[in-house]
Structure formats: C-alpha cells, structure tokens
C-alpha cells in the first residue's frame, strides 16, 4: 500500500476496538466492506471516546474514499472478474413483480425483471450493491453477496418520505410545518398536456387554475388562496430551479420533476417580498445515477370546437331586420336598401347561408408533441438533457402554435464535499394568429368573435363594413369574419434562455456553503397587423384606411446571485434534538426595455405577411425604444428548523427585502414567520392507534409576506417623451406619466394564519390533509383611479382585504394488488374574499369595457364586498300590453299607465315588448345613474376542486381527472351582444331571440301592429322581449351560474409486457389514448363556463366576451424508455 496511508493511520488513535469501528463504517457505507480485511491487517487501534470516533470516522472516510477509489479502480482493471447474480423480486404480499429495474450501483449494468419477477445479471467485479426499483415502491439497495439474491420491495408510503422543495432547500414532507402542496413528475407525464398549468388544474388544493379561453396560448390564471391584492396582479411567484421567472407557460410538463406550491406565509416568507400570493416552485428533471436511460414520449391529438351556438335562420334574420327598420325609423328604407322589398322577403326562405362559426372555428385542430430525454451519470457526475417540440394547429383559422424546448443539466462532484451544478434552458415559442380578442386592445370593437356569430348569414349586395351604424365613431360594425381575423393577424415569437450555475461546499461536516449565479434572458417579438377593417387602421393612425402594423420587441434580462450557509447542528445537539439553520443573501437585478415601432399606410392589398416583411412599403410613424427603470432587489434571509424527536417541530423564518421600487425610507420590508407542528401520532398516548394510524400531524403557522408588484419608477414624477399624432407640427411631446407619482409607497403586506392537519392511515392507504387559513393583506398596492385630478391613476397603499378558506385533500388507495389496483385522490378548496377597507374610499366602480363605453361601470368594488362583484340592472322581463293605457297615433307613442316603471332612459323608446328593468330607487323611472343598479353577481366560486381516479388492470391503466367550480357567476356579455341591437342594424342574433321566442310587433302585411288586443294575442306564446334597445344593457339576465363539473381528461393506457420488450432491449413502452374536455356539466348557456376575457384589470373577472372557443380533444401517444 502507498506509504501515505501508513503515515496517516499511524497517527490514528481509536477509542473502541477495531471491530466496532469497522462495523460502523460498514453500516454507514456498505461498499467499504471490501476494505475491511485490509484495515484489519494493517492498523492498530487504540482506545478513545465515542465522540472522537465519530469525528475521526468522517476524516477517515474522506481519506479512504480518495485513496481507495483510485486503488480499487486499479485493482478492478487488473482483475476484471465477472460473476452472475440471479433472483426474484416480490412485493410485500409475496407476489412477484414484473418490470422492476435491477441495477448494479455505480455502473450502467442493469436489467428488468421478467414475467415471474425473475432477473439474471452479470455483475462486474466492482459491483457490490444492487439497486432494485419499481414504480410505487420503495427503491432498495442490497449488497451483492452470493449469486442468488431475492428481493422484497415495500410499498412506498411516499407521503411521509417524499422530499418537497421549500425554497432555498428541500425538506421531507413529514418535517414540513407550513402549508405545501405538490405534484410529482409521474402524474405529469402520464397525461401529457402542453402546459404545466393545465397539468395541475384541479390537482392541488388551494390552487385555482382558470384557463381563460380556448386559444393555444391562452392566459392561464393561477391563484393561490384567492389572492390578496385588489388591482395588483395576484399571480404567484414562479421559481424554476431556484430562479424567479415571469411565466411557467413555456415549460413542458414532461421536463418537470416536481412542482410544489407554498401556500402559507411560514413557507413563503423565505421569499419575503414576493411571496404574498403564494409561490410555485418547479424543479426540472436532473440526471440520475446509473444506466443511461432514454425516454421518448410522443402524442398526436385532434381537436374540435366544444360547442357552437345556433343563430337565426335566414328568413328569420331578414324578418327581424325589417321589423327593426320599421321600429327604428317607421319606414323600411334602411331595410329595402339592402334586402329588397318586404313583399319579396320569402326569397330568403331558401337562400344559401354561411355557417360562420364553422368557417372560422370549425376546422379540426391537430397537435403533435414529442419529447426526448436522456439521463444518466455516475457517482461523480450526472446529466440530463431533453428536447421537446410541440406543433399545434388550432381550431381557429390562421391560428397555430409551436414551441421548442431544450433543457440541459449537469452536476459534478469533484470531491465528496463539493457539488457543482450547471443548467441551461432554452424555450422558443411561436404563436400565429390574433385570436378572438386581446388584452392590449385598441378598441373592444376589434374583438372578433361577434363577426363569426352575428355577421349577416348571407351575402348582401352593397352592405359594406361601414353600414348599419348611426353612431359617430363607426365603432361596432361587423365585418366578414374571415376578413376580420386576417385583418387582426398577429405573430408572436418568444425566446427564453436561462443559464445557472452553482457551487456547494461542505466546508466542515454539516456546514454547507452554496453560491448560485444565474442569468435569464427573455425576448418577445409581437407583430400585430391591422387591416383596413380594424378600428386602429381606420381611426388611430396618421394614414387612415390603409393597413398598419405595430411591431414590438420586449427584452428582459435578470441576473441573480444567491449565497447561502446551511448548518446542521447534528454534532452539537443530543440525539433527539435536531436543528438546522440557513442564512442567505440574494441579489436580483432585472433590466428591461420595449421597442415599439408603428408603421402605417401600407398598400391596401397588403396582408400581414407582406406588411411584416416589406416594412419599407409603409410609412414609419413612431419608433419608441423605451428603457424601464431597473428593478433591483437585495435580500437577506434566514431560516431555522428545529424538531424534537420529529414530534415537536418549529420553523422560524425571517427575510429582509430591499427594493429599488420604493423610496429610501420605505425600501426595506421585513417578513418574519413561524410555524409549529406536533406529530400527535408519535406521542405515547397514541400507541394504541398505531395499528391503523401511521401519522397524524397538526401544524400551526403565522407569518407575513410582502408584495412590491408595481412598475418601477413610481417615486418621482418623471417626464417621458411620448409620440403624438394629435398636434400640428409636432410628433412628440414631453409630459409626466399619466400615473401620478407617489413617494410614500411602501410594501404591501400579507399576514397569513394557517392551521393544518395531516394524516396517514392504514399503512399509507389513506392519507390527506385538512387546512384552514385566514390571510389579511394590508397596505394594498392599488393602482387607484384619480380621473379629474390631472392624472389617470396613482399607485397607493390603501385598504385591506382578507381571504379565509378551508382546504381538504385526500388520497385513498382503494385496492392495491399486483395485477390490479384503484386509487382515488381529490381535493376541495373554499375561499372567501372580503374587502375590509378601501382606505379613504367606501367603494368605486370599474368598467369591463367590452362594449366600449356603452355599458359603463359593471363591477363594483366596495368595502365589505369582494373583488369580482358584478353591478347592473335587475331584469323585470318585458313590458306587456297591459302596462300601457294605449297607443297615441298622433305622437306615435305608447302611453304607460300610471305607476308603471319607465325604463326609457336606459332602453330607449318604450312599447309593448320592450325590455323592462326593475326600479330600485322607487322613483318610478329607471335611469342611467347608479340609483337603479346594484350588485347582481359574484365571479368568486364558493368552492373549487378536483378528483382523480386511477385504475390499473394487468398492463392497462385508466385515469380520469375531474375538476369543478361551484357557485361562481359568469357575466355573459356575448349573450347581451347577440340578443340586443344597441345602435346597430343588420346584425344577426342567437336563437334565444328566434321568431316565436322574441316579442314581435310585425303584422303579416309588413306594418307595425299598434293594436293592444292583437299585439297581446300575437305574443301570447312568445317569452323573450323585443331585441330593440338603444344600447346594450347589463342586467341580471346576463349573469349566469358558472358552476361546472368537467371530466378534464380520461386516459386509457397499455403498458406492453416486459417480456416482449426485453427482447427489443426496451425498458418500458406504454401506449395510450386520452380524451380532453370529455364533458362539462353546466347550466351555463354560453360557450364554456371556464372563462375570463376582460383581464386588463383584475377587477373584472368572469366576463365572457369574445373568448376563443374551447375545444374537445383526443390524443394518442406513447411513452417509451430504453
């Protein structure tokens, strides 16, 4: 042996006898057993205390690893002797397991068990340990002794030993004191979806996921426990591999190892300032030690629009247009101009019609997605690389979506105590098509769905886009639906590149230093085309009525440096006391800018493709390269986790955040939190329950988290240069921002209180948790409207909101046999939002703006209420003939009886059949001011949740995921637009207003009937009012119950027998077919109850206006690994 070992060992004084030492070593690191003899023969061992032994053991081990690994390597190459090992793998019930992986540790040698759980393996001489694993069971390691090794695998009572991310570290689920939910990769890959958010929909208690519409890039709203801010963005903080990111939409679900949601402040406080709305931590897949595995997952899917709404037939449409012209003008001129004379109306009985919904949204969508990942490594280094590609042709014409992801992770241990990690992620997304609406709209009149719904069903001579409006702006005209979507074309390309490296060093035993550096770059190019039918091209540009484009490029880069020290007080404390402390410092710098170029005046025949590429054919109007102020955050944080005997647990966190968004005095926010947990099941008095109760833990936490989610630069009123198209001779001006500065701004703070109970019963067969919480958010950062002051809005700290709720999660293994099994898991969340205070205000209104300014304020934000309260009139059916004294032929008016409420200020001209509203003020007249409106709906659900059933039978697996929402209202704005005229003519309607259903005033001879008796009898069977109103009216008729239960996915898979696969050297092959959005039980009459399209502010949730319709989808795919 090399002399240095001798030298080292000569200095060693051992306390116990050599055999004891060797026993310890053996227990700790079984693979050192091979050096036993060597030690026995060469070294002297002296007496010392036990404590010293431990220290020495570590030192010794360290040295030994260095030297003997080298030695062994040399040795094994000299004597590369191979032996064969075989055996059977069984489960706890004694049944054999097919398809278990058996691997020689530290090598790439491995196999999979056959039909009777048998395996046979050639073990190289350096192979000392077998690693045996199977999905759903605990992985175990067995020393290779002898040639026959039978293994029994135990069920994985994973709830307890599962490791979850907790922010700057991980913890075992059993040691968690806060409120944490998580989803693992197996749940995510079994049913592939294109985005993470879809994957977690309905799976996590306390996390509400709303897919706002059906487009492939639809905004997915994730809310953790309701969200505390009023006008602020309530989106949670997303952390991907330690890095804060803006969105998780570009991460393929296949790449995710683990997704964890931190819900209470004791968990989120470690993220301090940004944790107030919850934290979602995503860990992507890393390399694993062992044989290189290749996974390939692919699927194709077809999709079709979920639901269409029927519209009036051609003759009915023509008839209504005639009646409308007569009602509006008393003469049919505006009808005859386009439709011919009334006597020829029967021509429309057989006129061919266009099914515009089908033309625009009717195509069969097709998606192809595949994912390749390679993963492997040895003790020293591990790697994972994956590539994902999705190509999605959506159901809407001109709309498609593509994404490519490359993920690479590498980790290396140059020495036992040092770990180096490096990862890069790239994501490139391309989205084509303008969708049915957009949040950054120029005018709601450019929303596209209405064209597909209520554009004239047959071609009409002379009818141009400008026809049919009596208003001044030309807003609200309809255009050919196909022209309208191509005139609103849009092309978005996003690229995210992320790079991170870290080094961790265990300086002394149990003292770990870790330093991480990361860089994230985001580039987004958003090209928007405005054809000549758009409001923008008609009215907002210097050269009107010619195509225009707005090309914007955003870039954002984030630099992050985090340094942490972690110390485990193992050595200092007695056996049952455990304490772990972490201190850290973090600096995040975010720089961003936006470049916006507007070019107008393209030749009128130009479409998007030409206009994007031949920009010199247009006239540049403005170029604005705007640099935002940097957003900097410097933080110091610390956490201590203490437990006694895993029975009493305490966790204390403090974070101090300094943000560049606030003034010197208000920069720093301090966010402390504490949590205690009591494992009741470990108490002596619970011993009697141990036969059926595995674990019972009570958790209580209290803590604060902050929020600084406002734009940078609110401290001083700075002058900005803006382009102008309004002033002769000037193209730009210097003015203050329209948002008034507020130097007094400070952190918004959320205090959360959480009580939770975790339980595991019946050997892990039944587990779950119950939680209740109360979150109070104070000093809300509100972008407060201050119209009339000289500014539009001002950010303020004002008011207080609270969210209180209850969540329950349960997992139940109903049956678990070798060849069949059934699992159920479900969760339910109740959340109640309440505005405790609005500071100086009591209430204020907010307009969702779907009908430009016609509807006005339709949401009401009031103390004592909640965000999402809809505000409008109360419907009172329609005026009947009996409401009138009669018709006055001279004034050509119907005279209301005394005491009958007059709705004409809102509805316009009143006659029998007109829409009727309730008079709330008692003055017998319904007016446009606030007197006759009230809260008529609430977008907040009473509870939401989901449940999953998983079954397996031999090679087959079946899984059904349901999710639901109960008790929320939807503001069906589409319905209002499709059933009332407002100021427009020539618009079609949905069949709610079909002839026979709607009130009719029309005699067969084409005159308007004003005879009370006849009119009443003509309408004896009609139920709806007459669609003729002077403007759109929001009443409780348009507020609908949005409760639903959806079978989100139903998946049937088949895993091929391993026997067959072994021959092909394939580890695993699963084929599956999945249906998405299989059914949705709901009373909602619109397209889909899961909708929210007016999202420019968070104050107007739950509006269904011009949403991209959702689709139903069927997928066929495979999961392959070898």
């Amino acid at each position, binding site marked *: 042996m090399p002399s240095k070992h001798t030298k080292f060992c000569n200095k060693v004084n051992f306390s116990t006898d050599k055999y004891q030492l060797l026993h310890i070593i053996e227990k700790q690191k079984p693979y050192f057993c091979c050096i036993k003899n060597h030690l026995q023969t060469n070294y002297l061992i002296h007496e010392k205390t036990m404590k010293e032994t431990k220290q020495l053991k570590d030192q010794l081990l360290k040295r030994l690893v260095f030297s003997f690994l080298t030695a062994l390597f040399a040795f094994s190459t000299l004597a590369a002797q191979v032996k064969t090992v075989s055996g059977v793998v069984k489960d706890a019930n004694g049944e054999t397991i097919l398809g278990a992986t058996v691997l020689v540790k530290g090598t790439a040698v491995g196999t999979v068990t056959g039909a009777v759980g048998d395996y046979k393996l050639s073990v190289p001489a350096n192979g000392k340990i077998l690693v045996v694993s199977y999905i759903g069971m605990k992985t175990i390691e067995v020393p290779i002794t002898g040639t026959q090794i039978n293994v029994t695998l135990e069920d994985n009572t994973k709830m307890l030993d599962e490791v979850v991310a907790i922010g700057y570290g991980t913890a075992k689920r059993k040691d968690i004191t806060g409120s944490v939910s998580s989803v693992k990769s197996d749940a995510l890959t079994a049913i592939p979806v294109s985005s993470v958010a879809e994957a977690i929909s309905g799976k996590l208690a306390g996390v509400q996921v709303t897919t706002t519409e059906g487009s492939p890039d639809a905004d997915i709203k994730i809310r953790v426990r309701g969200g505390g801010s009023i006008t602020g963005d309530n989106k949670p903080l997303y952390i991907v591999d330690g890095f804060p990111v803006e969105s998780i939409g570009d991460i393929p679900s296949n790449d995710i190892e683990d997704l964890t949601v931190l819900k209470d402040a004791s968990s989120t406080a470690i993220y301090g300032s940004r944790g107030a709305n919850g934290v979602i931590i995503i860990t992507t897949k890393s390399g694993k030690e062992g044989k290189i595995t290749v996974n390939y997952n692919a699927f194709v899917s077809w999709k079709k629009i979920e639901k269409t709404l029927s519209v009036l037939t051609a003759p009915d449409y023509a008839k209504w247009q005639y009646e409308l012209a007569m009602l509006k003008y008393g003469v049919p001129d505006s009808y005859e101009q386009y439709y011919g004379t009334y006597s020829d109306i029967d021509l429309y009985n057989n006129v061919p019609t266009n099914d515009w919904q089908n033309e625009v949204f009717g195509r069969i969508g097709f998606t192809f997605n595949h994912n390749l990942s390679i993963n492997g490594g040895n003790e020293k280094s591990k790697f994972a690389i994956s590539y994902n590609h999705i190509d999605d042709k959506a159901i809407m014409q001109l709309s498609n979506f593509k994404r490519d992801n490359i993920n690479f992770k590498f980790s290396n241990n*140059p*020495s036992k105590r*040092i770990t180096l990690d490096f990862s890069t992620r790239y994501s490139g997304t391309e989205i084509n098509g303008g969708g049915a609406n957009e949040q950054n709209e120029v005018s709601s009149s450019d929303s596209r769905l209405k064209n597909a719904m209520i554009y004239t069903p047959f071609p009409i001579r002379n009818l141009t886009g400008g026809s049919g409006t009596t208003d*001044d702006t*030309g807003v609200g005209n309809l255009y050919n639906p196909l022209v309208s979507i191509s005139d609103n074309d849009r092309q978005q390309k996003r690229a995210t590149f992320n790079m991170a490296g870290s*080094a961790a*060093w265990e300086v002394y035993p149990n003292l770990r230093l870790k*330093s991480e550096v990361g860089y994230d770059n985001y580039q987004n190019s958003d090209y928007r085309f405005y054809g000549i039918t758009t409001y923008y091209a*008609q009215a907002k540009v*210097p*050269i*009107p*009525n010619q195509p225009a484009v707005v090309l914007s490029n955003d870039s954002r880069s984030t630099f992050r*440096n985090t*340094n942490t020290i972690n110390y485990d007080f193992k050595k200092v404390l007695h056996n049952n006391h455990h304490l772990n402390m972490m201190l850290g*410092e973090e*600096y995040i710098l975010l720089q961003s800018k936006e470049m916006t170029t507007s070019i107008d005046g393209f030749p009128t025949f130009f479409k998007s493709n030409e206009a994007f590429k031949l920009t010199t054919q247009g006239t540049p109007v403005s170029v604005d390269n*705007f640099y935002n*102020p*940097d957003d900097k955050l*410097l933080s110091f944080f610390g956490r201590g986790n203490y437990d006694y005997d895993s029975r009493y647990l305490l966790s204390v966190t403090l974070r101090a955040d*300094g*943000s560049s968004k606030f003034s010197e005095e208000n920069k720093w926010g301090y966010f402390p939190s504490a949590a205690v947990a009591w494992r009741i099941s470990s108490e002596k008095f619970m011993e009697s329950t141990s036969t059926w109760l595995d674990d019972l833990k009570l958790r209580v936490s209290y803590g604060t988290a902050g929020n600084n989610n406002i734009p*940078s*630069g609110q401290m*001083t009123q*700075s*002058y*900005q*240069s803006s382009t102008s*198209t*309004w*002033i*002769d*001779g000037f193209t*730009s*001006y*210097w*003015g*203050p921002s329209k948002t*008034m500065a*507020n130097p007094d701004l400070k952190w918004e703070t959320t205090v959360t209180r959480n009580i939770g109970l975790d339980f595991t019963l019946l050997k892990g067969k039944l587990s779950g948790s119950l939680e209740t919480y109360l979150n109070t958010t104070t000093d809300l950062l509100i972008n407060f*409207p*201050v*119209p*009339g*002051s*000289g*500014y*539009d809005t001002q950010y303020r700290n004002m008011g207080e909101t609270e969210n209180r709720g209850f969540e329950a999660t349960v997992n139940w293994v109903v049956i678990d046999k070798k060849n069949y099994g059934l699992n159920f898991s479900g969760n339910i969340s109740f959340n109640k939002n309440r505005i405790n205070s609005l500071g100086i205000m009591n209430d204020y209104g907010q*307009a969702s703006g779907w009908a430009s*300014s016609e509807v*006005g304020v339709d949401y009401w934000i009031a103390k004592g209420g909640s965000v999402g309260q809809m505000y409008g009139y109360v419907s009172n059916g329609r005026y009947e003939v009996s409401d009138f004294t009669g018709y006055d032929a001279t004034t050509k008016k119907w005279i209301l009886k005394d005491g009958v409420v007059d709705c004409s*200020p809102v509805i*316009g*001209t009143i006659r029998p059949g007109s829409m009727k509203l309730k008079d709330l003020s008692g003055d017998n007249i319904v*007016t*446009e001011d*606030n007197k006759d409106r009230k809260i008529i709906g609430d977008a907040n659900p009473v509870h939401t949740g989901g449940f999953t059933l998983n079954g397996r039978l031999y090679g087959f697996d079946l899984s059904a995921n349901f999710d639901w929402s109960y008790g929320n209202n939807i503001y069906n704005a589409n319905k209002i637009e499709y059933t009332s005229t407002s100021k427009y003519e020539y618009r079609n309607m949905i069949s709610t207003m079909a002839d026979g259903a709607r009130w009719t005033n029309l005699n067969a001879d084409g005159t308007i009937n004003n005879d009370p008796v006849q009119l009443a009898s003509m309408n004896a069977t009609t139920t709806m009012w007459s669609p003729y109103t002077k*403007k759109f009216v929001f009443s409780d008729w348009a507020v609908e119950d949005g409760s639903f239960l959806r079978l989100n996915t139903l998946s049937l898979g088949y895993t091929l027998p391993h026997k067959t696969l072994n021959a092909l050297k394939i580890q695993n092959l699963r084929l599956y077919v999945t249906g998405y959005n299989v059914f949705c039980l709901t009373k909602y009459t619109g397209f889909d109850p899961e909708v929210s399209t007016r999202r420019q502010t968070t104050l107007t949730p739950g509006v269904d206006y011009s949403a991209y319709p959702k689709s139903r989808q069927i997928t066929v795919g495979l999961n392959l690994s070898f």
Partner: protein
Amino acid sequence: MKKIILKSFIIMSFVAFLSSCSDVLTAPTQSSMDESFIFSTPVLAEQAVMAIHQSIGETNSYRGRYIPYYGYNTDIEWYNTSEKTTDDKPSLTGYNPSVSSTNMNTADNVWAKMYEGIERANLCIRGLRTYGDVKNNTQLAQLLGEALTLRAVIYNDLIKAWGDVPARFEPITTTTIYVAKSDRDVIYKQLIADLAEAEDLVAWPNGSAVTKSTERVNKAFVKGLRARICLAAAGYSQRPDGVRQSTDPELTVAKLYPIVKQECLDVINSNTCKLGTFEQNFRNLCQDNVTAGFESLYEFPFSNQPERGRVVYTFGIRHTSTDKYTQLAKGGETGPLPNLFYDYDKEDVRRDVTCIPYVWTNGVQVLNKIQSWDFGKYRFEWMKRVVTSPNDDGVNWQVMRYADIYLMAAEAINELEDPTAAAPYLKVIRNRAFPTNPTKVDAYMETVSASKETFFNAIVDERALEFCGEMLRKADLIRWNLLSVKLNEAKTKLTAFANRNGSYSDLPDKLYFKTAADGESIVIYGLEHGDTDAAGVALNYPDPGKGWFISNGTNNLTVDKINSLFQTDPDTRQYWPIWQVFLDSSNGTLKNDYGY
C-alpha cells in the same frame, strides 16, 4: 480545487458586500429627462408645452366632446336631432343632461383631460419659472406665456361648462389631490392676472418665428382672451345661489370693462391683424392656412396628418355619402335654427356663408329638411385635402378671431362711455357684412346708436349674426342674463316660422330647385321673402317642388322639435353636471350644484 472554490466564495461575498454598500437599490428612470434640463432648453420646453395641446386634442377631450357638444342649443344654434329627447346627445344640448351621460361619463372624458392639461400647464409654469431664464430668453418667455394662456383657455372653458370648478394653479401633490370646487371668482382673478403676465411674455402675431402661425399663442390672442374673460367675470351666471353677477369688488363692470376696452384697443392699434372678407376667414380655416396677421387670432392645432379633430365633421355641411370632396361622409350634426336665415338682411354676406339648406349626396347638393339646416362656415368642399379618416377631419378649431375684438371693444365702450364712442367698432363689422351697401350700414348705425340700450341690443344681435356656428353664443347669453329670455324668444319665432305666421307669412309653400350647370350646385327658389309658389312653378324646374313647411299634411318642423330646443328652463341648467365618474373619484370633495 478547494482553494479555488474557497476563493470564489470569498470574492462572491465581497461583491455582495460591496454592492450592498453602494447604490445597489437605486434605479433611476431611464427613458426620461430631468425637469431642470427640459425647462432650460427651449426645444424640449416647447415639447412640454405641446403636452398641453395633446390634452386638448385627445379623443374624448376637446376634440370629441367639448367642441362637438358645448355651446348649444341657443337662440341661433341647435343639435339637428334634438327632438330625440331621451337620447344622450339631445339631453346634453337640451339643458337636461344626466350625470351618467354615455358620452361624458367616462374617466378619460374632457373634464379629466382639461385637468390633465392644467396639470401639464402648471408643471410647465413652475418649471419655466424655476429653471427657464425667461427674462433673457425670449423663446422660453414665449413658452411661459403660452402655458399661462392655455391654462386660462382651459379654465375659461371649464367655467363655461360647469360653473364653479376646482382651482389648481400648482402641480398636484399627494396632499392636494382632492380639492373642492372654488368660487369661479377666485379663478377669474387668477386668470386675469396670469394673462396680464403672459401679454408681456409672448410676441405679437408675426413678431417672432413661432407667432407667424395662428396655431401658437400670440399677444393679440392673449389680450383678446383677457378681454373675453373680463366680460364673463363681470357678467351674469348661474351660481349655487341663483343667477347673478359677482359680488367681488374686483370683478365689477367698472373694474373690468376698462380692461376689456384697453386690451381690445391695444390689439386694434397694434395693426398686427387684419379683417379680410367674412368668407375668407373660413376658407383659410378649412384650407389649413395658419398664417398669422389675418383674422384668426388663435386656433387649436389639430393635426392634419393624421387628420384629427371633428370640426367639419360636427359643424360642416353634411355629405351623406362620400364624394370627390371628402371620403368622410359626415357634417351637419348641428346647425342654425331654420328661422335664423330670415334674421339676416338679404344683403348680409354672412347669411349664405352661415345658413345652408342643402346637403351633399353622391357629390351633388340636394335640398335638406327645413328642421335641419347646416352651418356653412365649415365645408369639406373648401378644403385642399380630401379627408380620408373615418372619424376626424384635421381642421383646426378657431378659438378667437379679430371680429370678436371689435365687437368686444364696441360693447365695453358703449357701457363705459356712449354709443357714439362705441359705434366705429361695430361699424367695421357691419361694413364688412355689407361690402356693397355702405348706406344701409350708415342708416343702421344711426338707428342703433340711439341709446346705450339700443346699441347694446344691436351688439346682442350682431354677435348672433357674426358668430353663429362658432359656439360663442351660449356664454354670451349667460353673461348678459338673456339665456332663458332669448331661448324662449327663439321658440316663439320658430313656432311662427313653422306656421308661417307674422313676418314669415309671405313665404311660399314649397321650394323649387334644380342642379346648376356645374352639375353639383343647387339652385333654390322660394327661400326669400316675396318669393311665391306661382313664380316657382313657372320656373319649370324638373322637380315639381318640395313641400318645405308641410309634407303629407303635417308640419315638418314639429312642435316636439321646437320644444326640444330646451327640455328644462335653461337658466336653471346653465351648466352640465360634473359626471358621476368624477364625483365618485373625488373622495367626496366634489358635488353638483345647480339643482342636479
């Protein structure tokens, strides 16, 4: 290896330590500039003043709301579909507006835009006074004068539409964000003082490079505006306690009329402006001719490229379809009362420029309806551009013209001195109206100069004839305390006209018309006193004639239409209410008076 890592740790911590010491948490704005630099640099300060124009221009500001809806109905002007009384616009113009008017009750509405403009002006004024060397730098002086003047323009219009309003003469701070309404007298006094300061800062028309254009404020306009504001401040108006004059000793006729006189005479004596023909002023306006030194004193500079503003769109002769003159088929939203045509002397050249009985359809003039005449001062067909925007026409809004200076002078001098001293100024305007008949003018001047009262009445009449369609009438009637009187008078006249009673009894039944040889102009017979149906029929025009007053046995000018001139007593509704959205967002500091 260990050493390297240890070193990196040390370096890392050091960097972190360093960064935490320096300005690690300061993040200045980047795409912005400092106030001190902007207001000491003329080219930048000028763009800051342009921000005030921006506030005036934007969609729902003056461009789309104040100019199109303020100022009528009066005894000479009305909204052409004012009979639809429950609609929003007739309610606005018919003295019965709702606080939640769909046109007005939006957060970006003209009220907000006016205060935005005021805030921008306040920032400019503070900035220029603090950082701009206005004593030595004439460019910066001009800009300060412009900011003061534009602020006065906006305040004057605010008071015209809403009576008492919040006074803000300093940039807003967090503590002054909510303020109650001020007595308008406070604001008037400040404006009169501000304009006195501004007069000395800005140049006469053509006195500097920027004042060569009527799109920039010049000394003649500042003086004229000061005179206009003095007249308003000294006059009657509806106050929370009723219609009355100011009780402020500073705002008496005796104190303010001398200022009016002086300012007007200053302008006249400066000889920096000149009256052309009546029609020429409006042709210049339509043709984007902004050369200073003529009749126009100041215009809101709506952009021509792109086309911005709704002047012809709202007030012009209507084109019911697009034609070679315009791709924007608009105009005729509002027009003169039909009987106004007969208030003009037949020889008054202003009549046929102002009152237009036809519209354009498919490029040809066709007879309009008796109840909806159009103003002829604004015409697409006079423009040099063909308007292509669907919403805007790009024509400026003329805020003041030279004729107003003469008439204000005449009014003030009559009050301070006597008709004889005042007469020459009225006569200038009268002469221009009758370029070929000076004798008629002399005779008229003699009649009206009989007394202070007759002369005052002549001014009241003259301003109607001169400024019809320029939206000055309502404010004039209010300050003279004649709003209700004159509107009731107009109703009587309209009724007589509809029924062809009294002075209208000699008008024929029908109008007889044909298209002239040029293929587009209309030739009409039957409008003038003395025309007869017999003579009309004898003309043998292709059409047998149009029932002008009556068709199908009913009056075209209906009782409803006449009654819709005002829906409530105008003197109880001289002002619009402050819209609900602004009340809601005022933290309880604002309320509506005047019976709302």
